[in-house]
């Protein structure tokens, strides 16, 4: 970000409703070296994101109305797999459109809308020209196609400045194209579900001289006192994560990848409580606190399935609502187990017939984990799934917009 706070600090942030006006497919007239010939623009709370299939790059911008009635979009660009990033400053054109935004209006998207300005490399002041013009609306994606972040915005080997399975990476995922997140769940020795991928602590994922051993051997106190994630974040609990996703993001779906059977019951309790809290918010008289986010407990192995059956029986006996589940490996079991989603691995191919069968039965399909552009293309066109888990959210979002088919809503036919 701009070291001195940039021009954003001088302006009044645009409202959430105004940001929606920027959503669409944009054609680039300048700066295609950076972003390619076209890009998807989507928004989340406080952020306008430009998403491309060129090196899975993205631009994350804040938007504000300046005292001189110009509207500035300011932030940074980044290629996650390369150590390349820089500053971006754009202005809304034509001036009349900027004035209408500054007057608090919410203009309808149109081909009149252009944003132009410049980008730079590293901390350098942006001087290279960048200009985009609104071309058409985005295909339906909210609640339709789940661009699912693979344990956060980036891989551990990427250069995003956030660690996988941290709350910080989930906030970033919301800003760079994801509308759902897959997170890995393990339990500590004292039975608290936390986010962590590997069974053991290693220098790839954590720092700390006294941070050694296996997750299952250590209590939450021991982990939090002695370990930080690679970029200094705390190892989050599932409870903290669900709270942050509900209150601080617009993420629409959470895929709780159960790595250990012991975690199923406590995680299902947390999911159930979070879903009940959102339902209460949606049913009260205050529309401002409404929040809808699906939470799926993902069954990954036979051992986890056995634990899920026990957890379901326990919750039912207690009169607690059972959260929805996703089954990763057998499409036949999805419905017989009462799950709502199938999560196949990409290695078995697009499996279009199975995807259609699950859909006919009222379920959804979310493939894991596809990062390559060619594979994303073939799964989008052949399987037409409801979502894909990927570490390249910007790439996946833009490819879906270019060649994907919006999955039908429940009750709709294709």
């Amino acid at each position, binding site marked *: 970000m701009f070291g001195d706070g940039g021009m954003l600090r001088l302006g009044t942030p645009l409202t959430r409703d105004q940001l929606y006006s920027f959503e669409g497919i944009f054609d680039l007239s300048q700066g295609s070296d950076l972003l390619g010939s076209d890009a998807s623009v989507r928004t989340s709370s406080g952020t306008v994101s430009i998403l491309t299939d060129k090196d899975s790059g993205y631009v994350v911008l804040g938007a504000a109305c300046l005292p001189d009635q110009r509207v500035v979009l300011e932030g940074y660009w980044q290629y996650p797999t390369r150590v390349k990033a820089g500053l971006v400053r754009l202005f809304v054109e034509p001036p009349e459109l900027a004035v209408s935004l500054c007057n608090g209006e919410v203009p309808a998207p149109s081909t009149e809308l252009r944003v132009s300005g410049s980008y730079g490399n590293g901390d350098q002041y942006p001087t290279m020209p960048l200009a985009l013009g609104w071309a058409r609306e985005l295909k339906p994606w909210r609640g339709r196609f789940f661009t699912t972040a693979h344990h956060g915005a980036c891989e551990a080997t990427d250069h995003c400045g956030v660690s996988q399975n941290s709350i910080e990476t989930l906030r970033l995922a919301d800003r760079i194209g994801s509308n759902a997140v897959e997170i890995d769940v393990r339990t500590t*020795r*004292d039975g*608290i579900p936390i986010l962590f991928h590997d069974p*053991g*602590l*290693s*220098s790839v994922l*954590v*720092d*700390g*001289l*006294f*941070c*050694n*051993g*296996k997750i299952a*051997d*250590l*209590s*939450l*106190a*021991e982990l*939090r*006192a*002695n*370990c*930080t994630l690679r970029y200094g974040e705390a190892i989050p*609990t599932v*409870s*903290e994560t669900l709270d942050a996703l509900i209150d601080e993001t617009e993420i629409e779906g959470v895929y709780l990848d159960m790595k250990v059977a012991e975690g199923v019951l406590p995680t299902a309790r947390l999911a159930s409580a979070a879903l009940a809290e959102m339902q209460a918010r949606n049913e009260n008289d205050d529309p401002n606190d409404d929040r809808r986010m699906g939470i799926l407990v993902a069954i990954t192995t036979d051992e986890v399935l056995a634990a899920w059956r026990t957890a379901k029986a326990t919750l039912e006996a207690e009169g607690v609502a059972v959260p929805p589940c996703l089954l990763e490996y057998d499409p036949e079991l999805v419905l017989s187990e009462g799950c709502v989603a199938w999560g196949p691995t990409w290695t078995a191919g697009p499996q279009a017939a199975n995807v259609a069968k699950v859909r006919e039965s009222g379920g959804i399909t979310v493939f894991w984990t596809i990062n390559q552009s060619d594979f994303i293309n073939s799964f989008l066109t052949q399987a037409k799934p409801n979502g894909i888990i990927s570490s390249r959210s910007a790439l996946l979002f833009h490819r879906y917009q270019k060649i994907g088919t919006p999955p039908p809503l429940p009750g709709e036919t294709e």
Partner: protein
Amino acid sequence: MMRRSRLALRAFGMLSGAAVLSISSAAVAQEAAAAEAPAEASGRAPSALELSLSLGPSVVFGEPANPAYTQSFDRVGVLASLAVAYRSPYFLAPSLEVSYAALAEGESLLPDGPWGAGGLMEQQLATWVISPGVSTELWRFRVRLGIGLAVVSQSYTFLGAENSSTQLPVSSQLVLGFKALDNDLLRLDAEARVVTAQGAAVNFASLGLSARFDVISFGQP
């Protein structure tokens, strides 16, 4: 009790580390001629099964993760090792070494949090290193390289409860020795050692004294 024995071991390790410098400088002058003589001339068999014992202080690299919680932290520990080597008449000598290092200890004050009540947490980090390797001697210097397995043991005491966990990362070590004393019965080396257990991010160095002697000789002196 465990803490007291660790302190005693550490003090002994410090003494042996300090002794390295004085012994090496004093012995160099006396033993220079003998060390340069071939093994046959010193009355030693051309090959033998050699046992060595090492002891010295260690320094572990890295920092505690949460400085805000850290009350105290000591990165100086002690390393002791036992090695068996086949001293061959050829250039390289195969060896197997088992080391134990009490590496670091610390105390953190944890506030109340999602884990429940806060309190004082004690941490101890130690490791066993089992390391096959090879060594070679060049004049008074001996270089040993080993690749093996570390058994990293992390222990905590929190609110009166003790807990520990172990990891088994691959380890590698490089040992550089300087022969300070050499006679028919005993060789004394001053040793510098660097050990890394990369998977657990445990890396440390040690300076110590090593005593070597033949337990089984092969061939005539």
